[in-house]
């Protein structure tokens, strides 16, 4: 495995990754993401380390992947794969994320299912999961740094957070209200900038 490149100064790669590179990159995420936080892993791997996507492309893809039915991270893999390599890219990305992890899952079920009942494994995994939240949080904080360039964007971000976390409103209500509002504001900005 290559040693990690500098995170924030990675140059943007001109040529898109090959399907094999995509498959391996997603397989790595599928096989190493203990404790969850998969989209945080993806952002770290594809935006910060390999610079295959910009942060903005990744985040809007993430929002769409969450808004659509289906498993978020699989949706996101299809989205990213399609962006980078069209239909073949979408296919290998989704397969890379799921198939190796599935094979491991079945192998473990057959061989070591007793491990899941161990109290120590359970406690250690809770700790791994807590650390994995750090991956999501750093993704959110990096995104927030980027979103805080306009007052409207900050307001949308804060209201979304408050609605979900403090008011515990259903996700679909919050996104269903905030997304059209935010998109409408962005549309006005796009039109104003282009002077039409």
């Amino acid at each position, binding site marked *: 495995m290559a040693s990690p490149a500098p995170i924030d100064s990675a140059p943007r790669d001109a040529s898109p990754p090959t399907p094999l590179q995509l498959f391996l990159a997603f397989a790595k995420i599928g096989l190493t993401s203990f404790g969850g936080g998969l989209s945080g892993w993806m952002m770290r791997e594809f935006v910060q380390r390999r610079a295959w996507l910009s942060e903005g492309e990744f985040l809007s893809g993430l929002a769409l992947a969450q808004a*659509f039915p289906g498993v978020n*991270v699989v949706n996101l893999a299809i989205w990213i794969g*399609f962006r980078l390599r069209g239909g073949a890219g979408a296919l290998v990305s989704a397969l890379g994320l799921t198939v190796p992890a599935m094979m491991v899952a*079945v192998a473990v079920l057959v061989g070591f299912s007793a491990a899941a009942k161990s109290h120590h494994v359970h406690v*250690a995994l809770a700790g791994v999961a807590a650390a994995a939240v750090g991956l999501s949080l750093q993704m959110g904080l990096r995104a927030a740094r980027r979103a805080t360039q306009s007052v409207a964007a900050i307001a949308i971000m804060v209201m979304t957070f408050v609605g979900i976390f403090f008011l515990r409103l259903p996700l679909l209500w919050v996104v269903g209200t905030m*997304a059209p509002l935010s998109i409408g504001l962005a549309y006005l900005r796009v039109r104003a900038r282009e002077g039409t």
Partner: protein
Amino acid sequence: MNWKALLEVVLVFVPLSFLTVGGGQSIVADVHRQSVDVYGWMSNAAFMDLYALSRILPGPGALLVTLVGWQAAGLAGALVASAAIFIPSSLLVYGLAHLWTRFREKPAIRAIEAGLIPVATGMVLAASCTVLRVAEGGIWAWVVAAASTAALMLTRVSPFLLLGLGGVVFLVALA
């Protein structure tokens, strides 16, 4: 081959493919109901074991479905269940990605992309905090998550190291 069980697997998981929202937790209750009460593929205890196992494995949490398929109808069941949960919703997203690329330069599409970013940011932050609110370990979960966030923001430390440390901290503090 147990064709009846395979057909049942398809009937259970294809509709759930479109009902999955988020990480896959939204369908766990229904997977439980159908595989234990409706079709009797396994006992309640066996389901809880599979659920616990799916939590300790890497990869999408929805791999629980693969394990349930295996329990219901062996290798063919695992393959069919995985295909049934992942493929239908994937085709939908694939279609969306296709349309998106075609109209990418339109102001409306660019506005959607820009407008979704602050919403996604709020969602990601809220989801992380929600996970911590219900996490085992109470204050320790917040401490570990905060330390790991700071390390990831400020240093180039490997996330693996942080995950391992999180596990060790919990073992020392709580076990």
